[in-house]
Structures are given as C-alpha cells and as structure tokens.
C-alpha cells in the first residue's frame, strides 16, 4: 500500500494545527503579508493541481527503486526555494507539489542527502531569527519525512537573517528572504 496517502493526511492535519495556532498571534504586519501570500498562492495553485497526482506515486516500500525518473534530472525545473509568512513556519500549500518531488527523489535515492537551509527576514533580533529559520527548515524536514524520506538523509541549518536573498528593506525583499533553500550535497 502507499504510505504516502497516510502521510498526506498527516501533513494537512499538521498544517491546519499550525495555522490555527499562529492565527491567534497575528498582528497588523502579519495580515498584510498574508494578503501578499494569497495572491501568490492563487497563481501557483493551478500548477499544483496539475501535478497533484505525483504525490500518490511515491511508494516507500520499494527502496531499491531503479525507476529511471528517480534521477537527479527529475529535480530540474522544480523549486528549490520555499517561502514563508512573517513570523510563521507553516509550509504553504503551493510548496507541496515541489516538495513532493524532492521527497520522491530522496526516497528513490536513499544515499542522497539534502541540507535544508532556513532563513528569516531582517525584522526581529538575530539569534531569535536563527531559531525562526531553523523552525522553517524543520517544517520542510517534517514534510519530507512524512512522505517517507529517512531522517538521516536530511540536515537542517539556519542562517537566520544573515544571508538575505534581497538586501532591500521592503515588504517584497522581506518576503523573498523568509525562505528555506533545499541544497543537495
């Protein structure tokens, strides 16, 4: 049977828990970011729906998978950067499809390892942002392990606000900086 289906439900359950948990602490700044997010997710969601079927094709029990599609080439054109809302570490719905592809690759290649590098925007203090960046990397890590990736294949590292993708002091720059980068070593 496909373990993945179970995983998918678990992920949705987890995400919902996060959203509920975080909603109570949302401030004015948060809500403006959320609006921005909604615009982004609506443009991305169409592609998400198209490839949604890929999720169910991840079969964990076949660890000796020699499927020719499970090579590194399958990650070409797939997102390696995943974005987050302000002060949040919830995996966005539009990230799921690309993450599922990463999970599929890692499951098919048990010797492959990945580093999840979490980042925060410049607001807030530096060491707290280190912790926040790690929380984001761990959220992605949980998403991958739920889909069958072995924990030993994943390392999470946080750069906090130290390595911004965009050094401007604007909402747009901050959105680009709240991210997790998936890096294969």
């Amino acid at each position: 049977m496909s373990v993945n289906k179970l995983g998918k439900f678990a992920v949705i359950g987890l995400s919902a828990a996060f959203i509920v948990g975080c909603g109570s602490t949302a401030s004015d700044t948060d809500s403006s970011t959320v609006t921005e997010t909604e615009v982004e997710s609506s443009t991305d969601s169409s592609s998400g729906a198209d490839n949604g079927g890929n999720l169910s094709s991840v079969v964990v029990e076949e660890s000796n998978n020699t499927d020719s599609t499970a090579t590194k080439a399958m990650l070409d054109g797939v997102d390696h950067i995943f974005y987050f809302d302000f002060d949040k570490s919830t995996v966005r719905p539009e990230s799921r499809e690309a993450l599922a592809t990463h999970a599929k690759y890692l499951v098919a290649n048990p010797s492959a390892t990945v580093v999840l590098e979490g980042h925060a925007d410049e607001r807030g203090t530096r060491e707290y942002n280190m912790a926040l960046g790690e929380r984001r990397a761990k959220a992605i890590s949980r998403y991958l392990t739920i889909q069958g990736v072995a924990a030993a294949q994943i390392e999470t590292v946080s750069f906090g606000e130290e390595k911004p993708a965009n050094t401007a002091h604007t909402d747009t720059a901050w959105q680009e900086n709240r991210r997790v980068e998936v890096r294969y070593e």
Partner: protein
Amino acid sequence: MKPYRFLSLLLLAILTANIAKAQLVIEITSGADQLLPLAIVPFNYGGEGALSEDIAKIIEDDLKRSGFFETIPRENMLSLPYRKEDVFFRDWRLLKSDYVVIGSVIDTDANNYEITFELLNVLAEKSVEKQTKIIVNKNDLRTGAHYVSDQVYQLLTGIRGAFNTRILYVTVDGDPQNPTYQLQVADADGHRPQVIAQSKEPILSPSWNSDGTSLTYVMFRNRRPGIFTQELATGKRQQLAQYPGLNGAPAWSPDGKKLAIVLSKDGNPELYVFDLETKKLTRLTNHYSIDTEPAWEPDGKGIIFTSDRGGNPQIYRIDVNDRVVERITFEGDSNTRARITPDGRYLVTVQKNAGNYHIALQDMNNGRVQILTQTYLDESPSIAPNGSMVIYATTHKGKGVLAVVSVDGLVKYRLPSTAGEVREPAWSPFFN
C-alpha cells in the same frame, strides 16, 4: 603628589592588521537640556615637533558625547595655560566656564610620554583634585586622553567614566551577494578599529568575557554555525564542540568559567551551560518553544533569555541552580535579546510595538518601561560598563549603523561607518 599611574597597555597590543578598517564617525543627534560648561585647554607638549594626537580635542569629544557637558570653543579662550599658576580664573568666569582642564605632555624616554593634568573649579578658584601624572606608550596617546576623560567625568558626575573602553562590532562590506564579514574592535569613540576575525560567511553575536581579555562569537564555516572563543591579545582562537543545528548566542558567565549557549541538538532551541574547564555541557531549559539569547545576571545566579513559550517572544529568567523559570517582560507585542545593567537595576530589551522595533528600558524595581529610541529596526543593545549608555544597531538611510542612547533617553548619537554596514555592537567591560 600622587604616584604615577601606569596604564595597562597589554590589552592594546593586539593585532596590527591593517585590512579595510571602516572608521566609525560620531554624529550627535540630541543631548540633555542642562549642560555643564567647561574648557579643555590644549595640552602643552614639551618635546620636539607636535604630538600625533590632539589630546584636549579627544577629551572634549569624549565629554561632549556623554551629554553632560558643553565645551568652550578654543578660539574663544583668552589664554592657553598648562600650569595652575598661569590660570587667570576671571578670564574663565567671563567665558562662563565652570571648570577648566589643563595639562601637558613630556617625553620620559624614547618610548613613553608622561601626561600631567588637573581639573580646576573656576568659581572656587582651586583644584578639584590634585594634579595627576600618567605614563603612556608613544603609540597610545589616545588611551591617555581617554583616561583623562574618565577622571574628569568621574570627578564631576560621581559616575565612573567609560571612555577608556572598547566596542566590538561586525561589519559587512563588498558585493551584497558575496560580502565579507569582519569582527572588529575599536575604542568606544570609534577610533583605532582593528579587524580580529574575517570570513566570507556570517559572523554574529560577539561578546566579551568579564575582564575584557577574551571574546566569544558565532561564525559560520562550511555553511554551519560554530561558537568560537578568542583571546584578544594573542588572537588565539578555539571552537567549541559543534552540534547539529543551532550553535549560537554565546554569553560568558561573570566568573569567566562558563559559557551560556544555545543548541538545538535535542530537537529545538534550548539554553545550555558549557563549563570551559571541565568541558561539561549542562542543559538548562526544557521546553518545546524557542529559548535563546541568554544573558547572565551580574551575580551569575540567573540567566535571562528570550522565549516564545507564552505565544509571542518575551524575556524570562531561569535560576541557574533550581531551574525555576519566571517571566519578566509583559509590555509590548514582544521583547527580545535582553541585557541587564551592571547594577542589576534595569533590563534593556528590543521591544516590538505595532510592527516597530525599539530599545526599551525596564526598571526591575517597579516594572516601569520606557522606550528609549525612535530609530528604525533597532536591535542588539549592549550596555556600557558604567551603566550610563546603551549602544545598539539600527538602520539609517537604508544602511546598518551603530547608535548610542543614554539610559535616561536624553542623549543620542550615531556611529555610522565610513564603508559598509555595521551591526552587533558589544561594549567592553572596564579594563582595570
């Protein structure tokens, strides 16, 4: 006559690295209302040629920066005495100068100067304290000048001066996509910057040990964070054992024997105490939330830290012995990265209100909170060892700069860099 006072010069004999020193410049942005007028007469030099530094100017800048004083412009001075017998007090009364500082410098040998100085009360027409003499290395005239500033400040305010202290900070310079990070140390007035660590990967969270001889900071290597300690005089650097995940926020205990650090090796960010002698690592906190940014209380009995265990990040205290945790901050949307004044009276935090981050001061006796700054994206507060000033990082005209605010909020100045971004300031302890 007082015995000669010898300054400890060992501390200043650190690396002479001359790489891309980004000088800090002082811009005073506001001062207190009531300023004490005094005159710093140019110091006489009894040797040949001119001194490499204008001692009176350094003292004048120090005292003005404190926000307590205004100085009589040199061009208004009717005479430039350097001995008490040459001082005509009525001249200084005419200039409305309450006090006069006079002094002179002579060569004692090829390597050293002797600086003599005296603070005079114009109205009483007498010395505030007897003439003082100090010996300084010829390369170290600025230290001598700051020493004079400290003495004058203490005689007139009753508070120990902190001009002869230093600041650590991180600079980021070069291509924004591939910058160079430098850990630098400079005099408290921004002069004489020296690079003590440099990397193409991030450096953050620098802080001092309690006697100012060693530093600790976080530096990334191979894209992973590591905690380092470094001796200032020798540059000797050591890395603590590195763990998966976070390795951050090191803080030296007041007795110099331990470091409070943050690790996430057991699942999420927790406070640990690392004993530098026994190498024993002890976990302090145990909570699923973020616990980070530890700072020791002056007596070493408790550690204050940031935690979001209550929803939003606030400051908590943990007793080092019985591990009892109590919440300390309640005002504002959040409070993070706290520091305590040396007398334990005040807590300084980064407080968030309506999306803005400012430096806040909380009176530990009555809980009263005052917002000290109105600048943009304020963070990383660090308190002067005499408890009078807070240095912090802020953003000015889109660039990271350092700024200073007095604990009463009245005196403010900026220390922008001549190049690149400046951040993560850490004020040194007293050096003697």
